[in-house]
């Protein structure tokens, strides 16, 4: 049994970690829940029946054009393939001493900016909000630190509740004591989805802090030998030197088909190629790696290495043929992105992601509730600040994402690039919500912002359904199902926000008046 002083210490740790990381984690989880449907959002923005066909280009044509424009690229380059059924085009990556990225129509004017080919994509913006709050470079490191603090919050939270964990786990006590109900919900979600949260704390920290972490580990404990060992551990192809003799590399389609056949022969149920990489293109020793995604295995990302001239399979790293290193490396991504089990796992991750957002939101509410002064109309100043910040930032983020969807659709209808409008709409909405929560009585601000958010989600979805009206009478394709799915999820979220608005309104009008969450500010302590 733990001493009560120890429990109090970890309570303080839990409170502080929650304060430091809670808001950023709310954004990460809400945007992350949507990011599960990354490809579907990309299709929603740009469905095949509306997209410009110029953007797409056969892989081999793209390779030929790339090598024509940049002959030196042949030594080391790859093509990120267009996801099946989506209108997101392919793009090229090459490294001739510097990294370059280019979309098919801009092969001549490549950029050194990794994000440039997808900057106008709504799905990538939602992803950027998720992994870095949309702030380049610094945001990623910030979220890495947040992930570490999140880990400490999980450990301390678990330790606090360990003593009465089993007894209270399935207790959800509705009734007059609302704090108890919130606490029960917070604990139940925290404990029951603990494995999911541990996965995110660990993989999130690794993904965000990979570069600085490796540099420091190398310095502190590995005598500078870590890079070499790591490169060896994740290698998916033999190291080959250029022969110096020219020989035609097989066409990309043939190589992709051969890799797919080889991958399926290892026993995985699917293998969707998403990236093809060439080393020494056009040389007698050309090496090709085809990366693909397999479902129903934790080694989702697999790679087949082929000889570029003969098409012979050199190495297989797919499903059961992964090494321990390869399998763990691949499962870090699989467990984080939830792409290992088709639609069912995607929906599960979506719901767990929303539940995670609720965990941080309810944590803030509990912080306010445990500092509430009973039988006093005057509430502590810090609880007002926390209430305004929670309403402004959390509901503002939800509103901001709906606004980004709306701005993307509007920019598309006007024929302009959505990159700036969607960012302006999103950050503008968050700023609006924060200002609104500071200027209005906070209980009213909560109800009104939730109502505005509910209307925004439903309106965007209905407008999109109407906009694609002609499509619903055509034979359905996977793309139309994806678009419909996004719209229906939007309507469902809208209904959810409306329900929350109603619950907040009931709380404000009928609930305890000695709280920041009441409309009845005029009720004085002496009443």
């Amino acid at each position, binding site marked *: 049994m733990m001493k009560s002083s120890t429990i109090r210490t970890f309570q303080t*740790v839990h409170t502080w970690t929650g304060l430091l990381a809670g808001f950023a984690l709310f954004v990460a989880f809400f945007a992350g829940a949507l990011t599960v449907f990354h490809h579907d959002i990309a299709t929603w923005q740009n469905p095949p029946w509306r997209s410009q066909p110029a953007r797409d280009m056969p892989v081999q044509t793209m390779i030929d054009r790339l090598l024509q424009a940049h002959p030196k690229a042949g030594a080391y380059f790859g093509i990120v393939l267009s996801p099946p059924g989506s209108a997101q085009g392919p793009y090229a990556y090459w490294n001739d001493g510097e990294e370059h990225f280019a979309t098919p129509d801009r092969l001549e004017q490549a950029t050194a900016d990794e994000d440039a080919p997808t900057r106008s994509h709504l799905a990538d913006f939602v992803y950027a909000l998720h992994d870095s709050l949309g702030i380049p470079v610094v945001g990623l490191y910030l979220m890495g630190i947040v992930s570490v603090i999140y880990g*400490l919050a999980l*450990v301390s939270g678990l330790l606090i509740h360990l003593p009465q964990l089993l007894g209270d786990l399935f207790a959800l006590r509705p009734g007059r004591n609302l704090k108890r109900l919130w606490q029960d919900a917070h604990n139940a979600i925290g404990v029951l989805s603990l494995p999911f949260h541990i996965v995110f704390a660990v993989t999130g920290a690794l993904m965000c802090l990979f570069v600085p972490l490796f540099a420091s580990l190398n310095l502190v404990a590995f005598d500078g030998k870590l890079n070499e060992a790591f490169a060896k551990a*994740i290698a998916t192809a033999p190291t080959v030197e250029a022969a110096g003799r020219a020989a035609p590399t097989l066409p990309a389609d043939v190589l992709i088909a051969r890799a797919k056949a080889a991958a399926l022969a290892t026993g995985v149920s699917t293998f969707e190629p998403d990236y093809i990489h060439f080393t020494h293109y056009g040389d007698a020793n050309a090496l090709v790696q085809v990366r693909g995604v397999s479902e129903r295995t934790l080694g989702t990302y697999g790679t087949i290495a082929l000889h570029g001239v003969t098409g012979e399979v050199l190495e297989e790293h797919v499903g059961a043929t992964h090494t*321990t290193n390869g399998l*763990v490396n691949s499962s870090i991504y699989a467990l984080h992105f939830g792409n290992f089990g088709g639609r069912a796992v995607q929906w599960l991750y979506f719901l767990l992601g929303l539940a995670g957002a609720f965990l941080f939101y309810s944590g803030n509410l509990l912080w306010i509730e445990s500092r509430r002064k009973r039988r006093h109309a005057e509430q502590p100043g810090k609880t007002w600040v926390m209430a305004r910040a929670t309403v402004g930032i959390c509901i503002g983020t939800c509103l901001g994402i709906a606004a980004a969807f709306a701005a993307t659709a509007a920019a598309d209808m006007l024929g302009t690039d959505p990159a700036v409008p969607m960012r302006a709409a999103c950050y503008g909405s968050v700023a609006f919500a924060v200002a609104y929560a500071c200027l209005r009585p906070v209980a009213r601000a909560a109800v009104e912002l939730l109502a505005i958010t509910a209307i925004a989600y439903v309106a965007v979805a209905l407008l999109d359904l109407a906009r694609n009206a002609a499509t619903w009478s055509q034979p359905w394709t996977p793309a139309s199902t994806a678009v419909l799915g996004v719209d229906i999820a939007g309507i469902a979220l809208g209904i959810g926000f409306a329900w929350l608005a109603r619950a907040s309104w009931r709380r404000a009008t009928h609930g305890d008046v000695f709280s920041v969450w009441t409309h009845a500010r005029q009720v004085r302590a002496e009443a």
Partner: protein
Amino acid sequence: MIARCLAGTVLGFPLSAMLLALCLFWLPGHGQDWLIPVLLLFFPLWVGVMAGSYMFRSGTRAWAVLAAANAAVFALLWLSRHLAGT
């Protein structure tokens, strides 16, 4: 509180890193085949040390014990490498 937190964060980092390096060193083939699963343990270990540091009676004690642990693991790592001749 702050002192214990800092001790766990600052000294927990090299301690966790060196413990993993030691673990890899003693695995067959210096752990090359287990590199990624072992490195995956870094954040859980570091956070574990941070959480554990709150159990110390005082900040000074936390700094002292963790510094001693760092020195011990560093010595073990250095000895292992030295004796193995690498």
